[in-house]
């Protein structure tokens, strides 16, 4: 079963964030808990870990602002 990579709300007043970087290439393998992407929000950059293990499918490109809850990619 594929796991969605969802932009989390990790700051009290955070409603959106810029997807800064994918730390794994499209189609690459990732382990649950390993750093997967970085976001810029509330003037800081944060690394977000992978919610699952498997192969990464990137759905959203970097450099854009996305709302909390946006599905950025999938792990299958």
């Amino acid at each position, binding site marked *: 079963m594929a796991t*969605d*990579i*969802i*932009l*989390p*709300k*990790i*700051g*009290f007043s*955070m409603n959106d964030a810029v997807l800064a970087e994918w730390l794994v290439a499209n189609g690459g393998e990732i382990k649950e808990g390993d750093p997967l992407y970085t976001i810029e929000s509330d003037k800081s950059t944060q690394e*977000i*870990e992978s*919610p699952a293990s498997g192969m990464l499918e990137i759905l959203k490109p970097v450099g854009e602002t996305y709302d*909390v*809850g946006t599905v950025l990619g999938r792990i299958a």
Partner: protein
Amino acid sequence: MEANFPRPDAQTLLEIYRKATLIRRNDDRAHKVIRSGRMVMPFYSTKGQEIIPSALSVSLNADDYICTIYRGIHDSLAKGLSLKKLWAELGGRVTGSCKGKGGPMHITDPSIGIMVTTGIVGSTMPIANGLAWASKLSGNKRVTIANFGDGASNIGAFHEALNLASLWKLPVIFMCQNNRFAEHTTFADCTAVDKVSTRASSYSMPGYTIDGNDPDEMYGTARIAIERARAGEGPTLIEAMTYRHNGHVFGDDGHYMDAEERAAAIAADPLPKLRARLIYDGIASEDEIKAIEDGFERELDEAINEALASPYPALEEMKRDIFAHEIG
């Protein structure tokens, strides 16, 4: 702690560890779920404070009452809140303890004595007095625990509630969990006394400052206070010293917390200590403890998946459960 206070027996110690582990695993899982984007919620971590409600609640009856504040999931879990009801409520789903209409800051389940989680600092104490007054009038022998933090002891309602509870000899325990921070402000920066417990003498009740991370001290002192309340002798103020490992709310990195003090508190984490003691004293084996811990992980998986699969409350639910006589 006073030398003559009771100490927990082997099975009670194991039960304290079981409750504290449930609380810790739940807290860690909540961080993981929020960071995975599966749920959006305000979350006030209780990491570091688990021993207090765990060692207290083993002396409570099922029908005793607790009142707590938004940093109170540990109090509710220790009193027996089911993970399924909790997670559905955290997610705002109809299967939650408040049918999804309370949310993370208002976990309430009167069926097991969790009478209120309030979002207002200092507001548990007058509510606890009301419950205790009702118990006294009806003679049902129930005891009420009013949980609050060190910051709340500077709120007017604390002083009013202690005065009235002492005057009327109410069966209530004022349970101050001194985690050293009032939101983002240190205890010393906003409190005129060194110990909250000294305030008890102004209201003619016993006051104790104890190590809230020590299961023996916490158990013994809570037990004495509960017995005193149940016997109709009146309230007690307990100040249990502890330390909040995380920031005020999820997303707060705690940069204002003294780094050395914080590292020392985390290094002195009472859970691994209690775990090692249980094994050393032969109360439980490594395998038995591991089975408890793994069991909670499975229960958490189930509770979270069920919560996410449950519906949100319907719009017509908005006006229900507000007044004694339904309006819509």
